[in-house]
């Protein structure tokens, strides 16, 4: 077989070079097919990476624990309408659920924050220092507040970039400055690193964070036993999120004395699962695009078959001569098969190159990360070779079965 390819490859290549334009047009189908596979998968991978990083930006292995709902006269109040989560629950989640790495309360309110220069209405979150780790928020300048601020009800605040931009003139260092919430002065101790947008498009940087104790005593009171908000939990690892969810569920049901058949008076949202679902969505889309690309590869293959059939007819006399001087049918078969496969793999090669550039260009335009997939390059290259074999076989067989006498007489 190697011998036959060695013999027939130069012949095949020369035959293809003889009709350069035709060879090019024939491979165009394969080129487009492979290029679209490569670029679509590249873009799909980029989208996947983007979704992954977007969810990673929400927090690491994040679970949200929400308190229950009230029901008055058949109207459900919605999650959080009835505070059921207590500070003791938070403590229990921190200490008794082995899959939990950290947990922090988050109480939110929309208020107007003012500096000496400007004012800005934004969300203020009262929480504990673990919050920054759980949300994977990094400090840009200054520091986070610490446990001592929490214990002392200190009026300290950490600002997001958007808030800083609205409250202070450019070039002003906000650290150490005073901002006021409901006329209560807070000292700015830190500014968060810019995080950009959430997967849903809201601005991560439009936030202020203060100690939850300060929040409760100075911003928004409430029943001191309950957390008027949610508990954010980060699991130890990505794989641990489901386990953490089960552990917290069991723990809270036990603590809240919920009977076996009764519903939970809280709910848990697993953002990792949400992320996985969204990834499945992009995977399905990528698969769909790949299927379209496969169709175009098959169309390209039909183009190759068509042109090979024309070529066999055109070169009937040549085939006759080759047979007369001693070419076996199998050698004729190989000659045309190698020709078809050369066409299709050449198309595959050009397609891979064009597709890679297209994916890069598209990724750059959409500001998505570019992810090259070498396995897809190999698969589409192999597939184009396969198309050549599949669609080249029939014309090649037809050539090899010609009767030499008829072929020599062919006009």
């Amino acid at each position: 077989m190697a011998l036959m390819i060695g013999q027939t490859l130069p012949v095949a290549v020369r035959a293809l070079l003889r009709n350069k334009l035709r060879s090019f047009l024939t491979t165009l189908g394969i080129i487009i097919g492979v290029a679209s596979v490569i670029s679509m998968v590249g873009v799909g991978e980029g989208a996947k990476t983007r979704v992954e990083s977007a969810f990673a930006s929400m927090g690491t292995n994040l679970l949200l624990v929400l308190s229950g709902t009230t029901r008055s006269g058949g109207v459900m109040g919605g999650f959080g309408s009835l505070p059921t989560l207590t500070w003791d629950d938070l403590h229990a989640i921190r200490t008794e659920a082995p899959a939990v790495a950290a947990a922090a309360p988050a109480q939110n309110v929309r208020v107007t924050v003012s500096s000496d220069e400007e004012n800005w209405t934004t969300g203020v979150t009262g929480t504990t220092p673990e919050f920054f780790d759980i949300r994977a928020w990094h400090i840009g300048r200054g520091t986070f507040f610490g446990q001592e601020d929490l214990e002392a009800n200190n009026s300290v605040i950490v600002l997001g970039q958007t808030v800083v931009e609205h409250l202070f003139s450019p070039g002003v260092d906000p650290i150490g400055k005073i901002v006021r919430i409901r006329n209560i002065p807070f000292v700015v101790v830190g500014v968060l690193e810019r995080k950009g947008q959430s997967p849903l498009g809201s601005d991560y940087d439009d936030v202020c964070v203060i100690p939850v104790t300060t929040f409760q005593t100075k911003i928004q009171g409430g029943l001191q036993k309950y957390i008027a908000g949610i508990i954010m939990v980060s699991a130890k690892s990505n794989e641990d999120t489901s386990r953490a969810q089960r552990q917290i569920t069991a723990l809270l049901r036990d603590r809240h004395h919920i009977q076996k058949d009764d519903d939970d008076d809280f709910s848990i949202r697993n953002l990792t699962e949400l992320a996985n679902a969204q990834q499945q969505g992009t995977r399905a889309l990528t698969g769909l695009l790949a299927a379209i690309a496969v169709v175009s590869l098959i169309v390209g293959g039909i183009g190759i078959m068509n042109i090979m059939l024309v070529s066999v007819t055109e070169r009937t006399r040549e085939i006759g001569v080759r047979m007369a001087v001693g070419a076996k049918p199998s050698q004729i078969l190989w000659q045309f098969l190698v020709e078809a496969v050369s066409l299709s793999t050449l198309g595959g090669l050009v397609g891979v190159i064009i597709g890679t550039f297209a994916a890069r260009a598209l990724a750059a335009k959409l500001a998505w990360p570019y992810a090259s997939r070498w396995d897809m390059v190999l698969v589409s290259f192999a597939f184009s070779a396969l198309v050549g074999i599949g669609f080249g076989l029939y014309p090649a067989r037809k050539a090899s079965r010609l009767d030499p006498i008829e072929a020599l007489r062919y006009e």
Partner: protein
Amino acid sequence: MSLIVATDLVKTYRLGETELHALDGVSLTIEPGEFVAIMGASGSGKSTLMNILGCLDRPTSGSYTLAGREVSQLSAAQLAEVRNRTLGFVFQSFNLLSRTTALENAELPLVYAGIGRRERARRAATALGRVGLGDRLLHHPAQLSGGQQQRVAIARAIVNEPRLVLADEPTGNLDSKTSFAVMALFQELWRAGLTILFVTHEPDIARYASRVIIVRDGRIVSDTTQVARDAALDVSPPKAA
């Protein structure tokens, strides 16, 4: 040992209801070193005989022994091998591959004999030298005259040192002067030891053979040995004065 021993060759074509006997019991023996012309009108069966003797076709019945080997029932691949190693072909319309040099055309049988590239080029160049085209190795068929093209075809036929060269109307597409020159070349190769069998319908051309077989209605009607006329005499006839 005889080069060709054909006994009772029959070739029948079915045309709908009727059967056509292209060959109707031909028996023939050819010794090494003969220069045989097969003559006959069109439809006489001479082409069919030629195709069978050339292992391009198989007889319906009868036996055919070529160089000591029974070849009448071989497979297509086996026949290809016999053609490659034992036979050389020259056609009326030359049948050279266009856009391919004379050297590469002459190399073609060696490609299928599995001979390496350098050895192929060497042997093809030698063969082209023997037919007087040693200075035209890299010319394409379109750059050569009809006579030169037929010489390339002859070089291709002899390149693999066959036992027998078969030529089907080798001068059919050539003017008479070029025809004589081609026949002179065949005679030269014959005198050097090659066995040649050619088909023609021109008595002028058949004169150069050492034996003339006439076919009619699928049978041999005449088989005579003669003194071959020297074709070189006709290429450049002695000029008067």
